[in-house]
């Protein structure tokens, strides 16, 4: 929980109740009831500002001085969405220059980069202006302070998608990934951009190499592995369609790397192979792969990912059950599916979230 900064006001600040130009306004106290809970020991200034805010809200005063009052009210509590809403109504009524407001809200965001209301205000103003030309710069500035700020990424994604600002985004992401290859937000943004630009087979191929190159740099990085896996699973692709990846991961393994993400990837790859062979009754020996799956899970459980010991034991169990189902063959499998639906993994359906 962050703190309020009542101290932000300069020394010449005068209480509203002492300002001659406000003498015509009747301040209204808050009715917190006879026995309030979670009461706040408001400062004198807080009480003063909000007593006057209630008054202008109740009388629907939309004036320059009311606008300034909202600035003070928001400085004391930037999370008050009613004040933001009323400020917007004043801006609208006075036909204020919204580019000034854009400047103001940028400053407020820099002071409160993790506050929902300030980003929402920014978004409404950008929508009113129908101009998002400053959004990439603003979010870049905020991401400079914290490259994983969720609000900034959300705003950036919205601006890019709504105003079609995809052009230089891959280069921007590349810069962030170069600075910190573990920045999961940047990897996610990469996936978002690629999907909108179109994940053609060529793009997928290029991006697979992009991910593999970064895994070569730092192997124990969940973000790059998730990205790689996500690409492979996208649409109807399966891991085995990409022999480059198979070679890459097996070479990593043979060179002695035991990152849990690598081992987990191999578990998935060999699981896929085993079940595929059983389902299609091909001539390969599925048990070669099946043994690898179990062996890798045991390694994870006992040595390389012991915190998830129980999980990897579960994966073995589930794998064995799926294997039995795959052996039965697709026709009989459908009949059994009704009874044991929770055990069937190899359904042909797409992952809803990514297929649309």
């Amino acid at each position, binding site marked *: 929980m962050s703190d309020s900064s009542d101290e932000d006001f300069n020394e010449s600040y005068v209480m509203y109740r002492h300002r001659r130009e406000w003498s015509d306004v*009747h301040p*209204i*106290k808050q*009715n917190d009831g006879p026995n309030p809970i979670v009461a*706040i020991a408001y400062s004198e200034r807080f009480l003063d500002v909000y007593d006057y805010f209630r008054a202008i809200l109740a009388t629907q005063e939309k004036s320059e001085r009311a606008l300034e009052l909202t600035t003070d009210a928001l400085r004391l509590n930037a999370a008050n969405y*009613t004040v933001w*809403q009323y400020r917007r109504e004043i801006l609208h009524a006075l036909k204020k220059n919204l580019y000034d407001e854009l400047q103001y809200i940028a400053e407020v965001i820099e002071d409160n980069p993790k506050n929902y209301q300030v980003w929402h205000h920014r978004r409404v103003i950008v929508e009113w202006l129908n101009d998002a030309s400053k959004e990439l710069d603003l979010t870049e500035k905020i991401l400079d302070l914290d490259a994983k700020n969720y609000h900034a990424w959300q705003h950036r994604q919205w601006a890019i998608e709504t105003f079609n600002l995809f052009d230089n985004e891959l280069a921007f992401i590349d810069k962030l990934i170069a600075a910190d290859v573990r920045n999961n937000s940047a990897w996610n943004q990469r996936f978002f951009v690629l999907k909108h630009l179109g994940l053609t087979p060529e793009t997928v191929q290029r991006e697979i190499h992009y991910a593999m190159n970064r895994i070569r740099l730092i192997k124990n990085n969940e*973000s790059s592995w998730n*990205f790689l896996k996500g690409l492979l699973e996208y649409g109807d692709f399966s891991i085995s369609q990409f022999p480059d990846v198979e070679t890459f991961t097996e070479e990593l393994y043979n060179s002695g790397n035991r990152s849990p993400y690598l081992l987990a990837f191999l578990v998935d790859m060999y699981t896929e192979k085993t079940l595929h062979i059983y389902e299609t009754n091909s001539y390969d020996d599925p048990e070669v792969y099946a043994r690898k799956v179990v062996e890798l899970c045991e390694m994870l459980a006992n040595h390389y990912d012991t915190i998830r010991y129980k*999980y990897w034991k579960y994966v073995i169990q589930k794998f064995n059950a799926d294997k039995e189902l795959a052996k039965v063959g697709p026709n009989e499998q459908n009949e059994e599916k009704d009874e044991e639906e929770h055990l069937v993994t190899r359904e042909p359906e797409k992952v809803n979230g990514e297929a649309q």
Partner: protein
Amino acid sequence: MNKRVHARYFSRFLNLLPHRLSCHDSTRATIGFFSVSGIDVLDSLDLLSEESKKNIIDWIYSLQVIPKEGGLKCGGFQGATTLNLLDPPENYSTDQYKWGHLAMTYTCIAVLVILGDDLSRVDRKAIIEGVASVQRDDGSFSASVEGNEFDMRFVYCASCICFMLNDWGNVDKKLMSQYILKSIRYDGGVSQHLENESHGGTTFCAIAALQLSDQMHLLNSKQMEKLKRWLLFRQDGGFQGRPNKPIDTCYSFWIGAALKIIDAFELSNFKENREYILSCQDTIVGGFSKWSGTSSDPFHTYFGLCGLSFLREPGLLEVQPCLNISMRAFERLKNLHKIWQLHSQMEVQLNIE
């Protein structure tokens, strides 16, 4: 663990906050929720006298917005009394800015249930109309009729409210589920909004909403297995909210609850989770912090305790993972549902006669 010291920590927040916390002025109801539900999970409601329980209930009701006939469908609860006027001159009114807020409505109803209120003063019909009126075309929900953002958090709050009032009214559950499914990311987690990054808090929101709306079957087994792994991979001692982020006490709840809901919590590492949460405990002042060695706050204290409750820590009440209230409060709610059902059956019968 010294239960009393944590219960007293919460009761201090129920009383008075220092002015440096004025930036939480608009969301006092949620601090009330963390404190009351926290005291309940600590099985220490006896710390609150009957009178103070009544005062809390009355204050919560003072936040309720009763919409005008034919006006804006703004039913629900506000987060604070900021717009409640004391002795206003004639014709002075802030009513047109009083809107129910989904997060506040959810937490206010929860507080009422925890304290044993029968919800008879809750305008159930107006609230459900309010929830339906803030649903958007993409299936998500805004926090209020105007002036607020929309995302997975409010999908969750909407689901809690409808479940707690046992009425989905004109809420489009199907559309809501489509929004949730579209927000599943390539790594198996769920984002706050569509193609944003997977996040522990919003993954919980999505999964709990599916469960509360009885739509968990919409996840196919591949999605379910990916989700399970994504959730379990968040553990690194305690839990983190996103890959490559530091662990934080509150995710012992968000991730833990999501795992509970999909019946996979037993696959997590209890010992390390427990050790981390307890390392964030302030045994003198009370409360839990997000990181060991930093100062406590009600939010992390509440979620730390819920995390411990999932680990069956002695002395704590069991927590219902979807609604995020004690199982005891949950049972009380189910009883209210039964009573409402009886009443409506009786009404139907009277009408027939």
